[in-house]
């Protein structure tokens, strides 16, 4: 079998629109903060005294946590002051439904586990999660994508801010049921990743019981290339960005493999950390970062020689970027702003003379690689240690790790991959027996599949097949159906959702603010005649700026125009051009449409304007 250039599996996390998984709180995200609770977490010891790799990385940062516990959306269960209640039955049914849709093999008994997570995002220090089904299949244009597992778990708390040693989380999101679907490593191109994610998304939405909107569905990507290593990019929220993250990760791993080849070619062995205080030779340095650090109490500029790492921290073509990896580790470990390395110096206000002074101070030849960190010495030292550790890892190629997606399509180091076995039974939650009767009832009431919905849209509302597919794929099926069935505006709805929204986005509108409720309010207003359909793009654009449909119509001067008002406008225009009308007769309608529409655009539609014009002209001709 030919080796694939890319191996990718995804995990998709979808919030369910039910009550919380282990209590009766509602699952809305709220603005109010509620009461404060302060906590710490400590890594638990396992039987053999092994503490999990990822747990250790967190403990290294010795974080304290502050939780905001708003009422109605959090209770004693979320603050870990009361044991969990029985798992929500609706959430289990939805998970079983998805398992049936994916032809997965369902557990006879579902057991909730405690998965250790001590970054504070769970007040307990673990996430409750249960394996519901395994070994399913997703068919996509004839290709079978394996579904490894379908789990039901609780969502984590929302991170609000991180200040010094304290992270603040809000508890409204904690405990919202999440379905996690993990595919096999069966995808081999960035576009395919997107297609699979879209298909899983539409199957989830087909249950009609999932949450909608940004942040309610999140994807983790597991990516590796031949010779590389498994890297997990965690928590991508925008489907359209998936191919970009995949491609960039492939490029990053390729770069790291090139670096490994270069370093091995240079016969490098792992470096020892040799920190040198460079402060004495940088007193006159013009760099703001350097001067700022030296002005601090306990501030210093520390450096480490990195002989052999020349040209790989940042290559001239920008393809090799080990320096960025080193800086991310330094930031994570020590909370510094970053590091400078010799591939980017002179620069950032650090002159050639400064560089020479530093290499002199470190006792290395001009041209030998090094890195520096300017901050309090107690932070700069561990930062450089972390940077050297990362540099040494480059000798082995690509390290396995978890990375955070960045809005520009890149990703940054967050922590090592968690070890495999960090789960133990959640003894506070009873196991759930999945009876044959329950599974049969689920199979009898399976929801309409996306392709069935597409066919229905074509048959019932007369839209094009391509439009129907796209509506379902983009997740507009519920909205479309409501607009089409309630207001009879299928064509307008399809055009608006599929063409207008992307257009106004291109023009800079933030269409993520136009959720289903907002779009529905615009269609309702249109239906009630608050404005004409030509004005809809402008209205939506204004609403994307945060206005209600009422405010948007007002702002655009689209006050609703009754026919008598419009009549008056048309009559005035006809009177102003009386000579012309009398000369042309009914043939004046065409030429006068221009001036009429100029006054009435968006307030009445073209058809009505033309009718009014005909009426006024014939009135004048008869009168």
């Amino acid at each position, binding site marked *: 079998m030919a080796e694939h250039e890319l191996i990718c599996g995804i995990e998709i996390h979808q919030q369910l629109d039910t009550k919380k998984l282990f209590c009766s709180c509602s699952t809305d995200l709220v603005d109010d903060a509620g009461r*404060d*609770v*302060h*906590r*710490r*977490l*400590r*890594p*638990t*010891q*396992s*039987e*053999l*005294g092994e503490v999990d790799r990822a747990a250790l990385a967190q403990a290294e940062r010795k974080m304290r946590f502050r939780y905001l516990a708003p009422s109605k959306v959090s209770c*004693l269960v979320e*603050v*870990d*002051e*009361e*044991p969990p209640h029985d798992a929500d039955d609706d959430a289990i049914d939805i998970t079983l439904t998805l398992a049936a849709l994916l032809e997965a*093999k369902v*557990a*006879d*008994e*579902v*057991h909730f*586990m*405690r*998965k*250790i997570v*001590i970054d504070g995002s769970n*007040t*307990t*220090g*673990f996430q409750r*999660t*249960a*394996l519901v089904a*395994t070994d399913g299949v997703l068919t996509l244009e004839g290709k079978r994508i394996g579904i490894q*597992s379908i*789990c039901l778990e609780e969502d984590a708390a929302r991170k609000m801010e991180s200040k010094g040693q304290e992270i603040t989380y809000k508890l409204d999101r904690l405990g919202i049921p999440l379905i996690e679907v993990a595919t096999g490593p069966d995808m081999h191109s960035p576009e395919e990743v997107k297609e699979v994610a879209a298909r899983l998304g539409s199957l989830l939405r087909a249950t009609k019981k999932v949450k909608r909107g940004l942040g309610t569905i999140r994807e983790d990507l597991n990516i590796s290339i031949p010779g590389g290593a498994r890297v997990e990019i965690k928590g991508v929220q925008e489907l359209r960005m998936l191919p970009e993250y995949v491609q960039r990760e492939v490029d990053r791993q390729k770069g790291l493999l090139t670096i490994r080849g270069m370093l091995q070619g240079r016969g490098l062995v792992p470096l020892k950390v040799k920190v040198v205080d460079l402060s004495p030779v940088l007193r006159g340095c013009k760099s703001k970062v350097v001067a700022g650090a030296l002005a601090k109490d306990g501030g210093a500029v520390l450096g480490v020689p990195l002989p052999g790492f020349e040209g790989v921290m940042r290559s001239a073509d920008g393809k090799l970027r080990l320096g960025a990896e080193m800086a991310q580790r330094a930031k994570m470990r020590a909370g510094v702003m970053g590091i400078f390395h010799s591939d980017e110096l002179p620069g950032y206000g650090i002159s050639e003379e400064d560089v020479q002074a530093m290499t002199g101070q470190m006792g290395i030849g001009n041209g030998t690689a090094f890195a520096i960190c300017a901050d309090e010495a107690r932070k700069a030292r561990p930062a450089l240690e972390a940077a050297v550790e990362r540099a040494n890892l480059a000798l082995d190629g690509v390290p396995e790790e978890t990375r955070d997606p960045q809005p520009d399509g890149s990703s940054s180091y967050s922590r090592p991959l968690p070890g*495999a*076995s*960090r*789960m*133990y*039974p959640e003894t506070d939650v*009873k*196991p759930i*027996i999945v009876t044959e009767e329950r599974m049969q009832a689920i199979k009898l009431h399976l929801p309409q599949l996306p392709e069935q919905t597409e066919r229905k849209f074509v048959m019932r509302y007369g839209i094009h097949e391509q439009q129907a597919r796209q509506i379902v794929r983009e997740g507009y099926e519920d909205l479309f159906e409501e607009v089409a069935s309630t207001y009879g505006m299928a064509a307008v709805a399809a055009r608006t959702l599929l063409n207008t929204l992307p257009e106004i986005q291109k023009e800079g509108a933030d269409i993520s603010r136009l959720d289903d409720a907002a779009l529905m309010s615009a269609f309702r207003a249109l239906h009630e005649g608050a404005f004409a359909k030509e004005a809809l793009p402008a209205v939506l654009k204004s609403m994307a700026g945060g206005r209600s449909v009422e405010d948007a119509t007002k702002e655009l001067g689209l006050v609703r125009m009754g026919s008598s008002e419009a009549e008056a406008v048309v009559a005035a225009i006809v009177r102003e051009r009386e000579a012309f009308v009398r000369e042309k007769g009914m043939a004046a309608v065409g030429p006068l449409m221009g001036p009429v529409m100029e006054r009435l655009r968006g307030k009445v539609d073209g058809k009505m304007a033309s009718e009014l014009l005909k009426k006024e002209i014939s009135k004048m001709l008869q009168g």
Partner: protein
Amino acid sequence: MSYSQRVGALLRQAGAEEGDYVKVVLDRSREYAGVLMPHHEFSDPDIIVLKLKSGYNIGLRMNEGARLEVLSKAVRKERPHRPANKSDERRRVGVLGTGGTIASYVDYRTGAVHPALSAEDLISAVPEMAELCQVEAKVVFSIFSENMMVEHWQRLAAEIADRLDSGDEGVIVPHGTDTMGYTAAALSFMLDDLPAPVVLVGAQRSSDRPSSDAYTNLISAARFCTSADAAEVFVLMHESISDTTAAVHRGTRVRKMHTSRRDAFQSVNEGPVARMDLDGKVEMLSPCRKRSSSKVKLRPAMEERVCLVQFYPGMSSSAFGALLRAHKGAVIAGTGLGHVSHELVHVIKDVVKEGIPVVMTSQCLNGRVNLNVYDTGRDLLSAGVIPGEDMLPETAMVKLMWALANSSDPEGTKDLMATNLRGEMSDRREA
């Protein structure tokens, strides 16, 4: 529930035991491999639980025709030896285990939670302890706190006396929270002339969890033992639901007031004795007995046949009378200022005449009983009821057990009950 006969036989035939790595074939399309887990009490009798390679447990129904095969037997891993930290210049603190898991290890392979029992285990799980003191750990017994009996209090009191007499700076007693208040009261009366503090400590979240309050409570208890000038029996638990401070309560005044919160333990009718900042600061809030070089005066005798009865409207007088007569003494948690129905007053009158002391406390918990205000109260006094002042009903019951065993006649018992011995009652309550 345990396994059904059939599944039990299947496992025996395969020679499968918990912890073994097994293969299960349910039918042509379903096959699993994983570690055989213990059967859950609430699991279906035909279901076995496997821990899969992913770490997840899954319940599988062993229908007729299902097969199971042991792939490899469980490997019992040796626990690494944890060297005890021997540096004798530090202060010595005794840790006397009673059951419950104040510190524990999780075996993620099998999901089992093992308690840290030895001093070495404890120090390894809570290394901060070693920075504060030299720990002398011993497990006195290992039971759920709801199964605690007078005999356990007595053994514990004797062990504590031994430790303090051999020079410990204090003794920490990790204890299940359900009956920790009762034990604290019992130890308070049994241990006289304490030279150093005895601190009962518990956890409302079990110690296998990263969010457990066990560790902060335990470390604070060690800090209190080595730094506070106090020599009574105390209970130390979280002061609020945040991990910021712990409160030190007098053993005779403390009550579990919530089923699950970290700050479940509250002092009633007085404030806590001290506040422990979890970062290390000790703040004494009210006066208490100071440390001394005295030897412990151990007085462990108790009359076990004492009952605690909560009065309720419509309570049957015959059942009430029968219950009281089955005991050597009774404490009643009456309504309001300390009342029971007219009918019951008559029963009490007879019972007292028969030589059974009856102590009145209030189910209000907060405030003092006062039998002078209403007719019923005055009738109760005439009937010979002993007012329990502002004692907690549970403390009054434990005290009556002790007073009956440590006095020679009813008058003596009555005197002991009316005297403040361990801070269990007071004349004034702050406004």
